[in-house]
């Protein structure tokens, strides 16, 4: 099963990537090459095999809900593309 250009555009939208037409062309082959690699897995019998999400046993870690020192607001905003009055600024998305 191969991805078409339209499929690639759909996955790009889900991935929040606005690809140019040229990029769609460039990406289609490597994506299909990978999907073809995955075919081998589909032939493997994994009935009853538990999935592994982490190689080592990990469990949820809890701590007391205590107030601890954290970054200041200025530090947090220092890397923002745009900030004003202690807030992140984003372009207006609702029309007047």
């Amino acid at each position, binding site marked *: 099963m191969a991805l078409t250009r339209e499929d*690639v555009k759909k996955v790009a939208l889900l991935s929040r*990537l606005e690809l140019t037409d040229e990029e769609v062309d460039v*990406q289609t082959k490597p994506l299909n090459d990978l999907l073809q690699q995955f075919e081998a897995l589909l032939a*493997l019998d994994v009935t009853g095999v538990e999935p*592994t999400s*982490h*190689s080592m046993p*990990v469990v949820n870690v809890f701590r007391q809900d205590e107030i601890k020192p954290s970054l200041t607001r200025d530090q947090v905003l*220092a890397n923002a593309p745009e900030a004003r009055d202690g807030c992140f600024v984003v372009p207006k998305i609702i029309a007047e």
Partner: protein
Amino acid sequence: MSDLTTLTALECSRKLVSKEISSRELTEAALNRIEAVDGKVRAFLTVTPERALAAADRVDAKRASGEPLSPLAGVPIALKDNMCTPGVRTTAGSKILGNFVPPYSATVVSKLEQAGLIIVGKTNLDEFAMGSSTENSGFHTSRNPWDLDRVPGGSSGGSAAAVAALEVPVSLGSDTGGSIRQPASLCGIVGMKPTYGRVSRYGLIAYASSLDQIGPMGRTVLDCALTLNAIAGHDTMDSTSTEVATEDFSAGCGKSIAGLRIGVPKEYFGQGVTPDVAAAVQAAIAKYTELGAIVEECSLPNTEYALASYYIIAPAECSSNLARFDGVKYGHRTNELAGHIGLTEKTRDEGFGAEVKQRIMIGTYALSAGYYDAYYKRAQQVRTLIRRDFDTAFERFDVLITPTSPGTAFKIGEKADPLEMKLADVCTIPINMAGLPAISIPCGFAEGLPIGLQLITRPYAETKLFNAAHAYEQATQWGQKFAPLT
């Protein structure tokens, strides 16, 4: 070339302790070497001379006043540029983080600073650690000090090249599918991936969280063990960091390996391994027998499925991890006015390179409705099979031996096909899938290019791994040759 730059970290430490040299002298020697050769090697993205010299002076002052210091205090080190250094630009090799200055410190950075190591700069990598050559870096391609027309490997290619070019005695890399071991192999140095969870990932810019692990790179096994001593340990800031106690990982170095049970998994000698690499690894295996190890062939039957399942799991995790880059809180933002979704889409299209986009998309696809069971869940089931293969092998063996990389350093531009590039990690990927510790050490040359040997052991047995690697290193001279860089 200043003599100081040829010293190992351990030799530096001894001369510092005996006050034969100062940390300032060592740091200046490293900075001068970087100044002299990095125009060719291009290992670094950022060099921090003032910071480094100030840190060196602090260590020298402490030593002069008789304060107790850690073994590697005063020794220069370089960090892969995906570890957050407060006040120093940290890019992950991506344009999307081109101006990112972290407001906080990665745990490894705090630990190195506490131990008095001198951070001289941040090294180049494939964007977000996705690649095997540094050619995917958003900034430039680093060069292999053994042949400047060839890649240093990746993704920790800058950290490997910096050590091989004698710019620093040790560095840190991160390894998700081979990103420490493969460049170590291609640059003729030692690179070690600890057990998953040994070293805190807090402040490591994430690629695939269930696979990523930070580890040491150096010119000797002992230097890597001592560097791991400085960075390992449980961290409350990383819920996946292990509570298994740390130890002196260098404690086994120098001890005999007589009776060590070594397995040679036969599946690792197909997989596109070149005759030169196979011959060098076979010779190394013979050397181990000579040293008293008991060597037997074994099988890890699910090895052939590791690459495909990795390229579902790692991209699935990366598609989630990289969703945070939206042009709002930090990083690049498009200048085009494009509405809500458009702002995110354009920002990401401008900020990410082709390989990163490809992995985000394949991961998104594998996790999307209708494909989750067929791809993601199945890949996780295969991961269980791969882990079981290793469990079974470690019932009989202490250590497994394989090539690190199927070939030696390739030419820049040679592997233009993304799939061919991915095959460069075929011998290292299964180890990350199982979370195991592994090390690459030099074991020969082919046409002047280094070859690496990979040793793998069971979880938390790093001391045993260093013991086995050190015994071979001391019995051979491969690691003592310097890259012919002038």
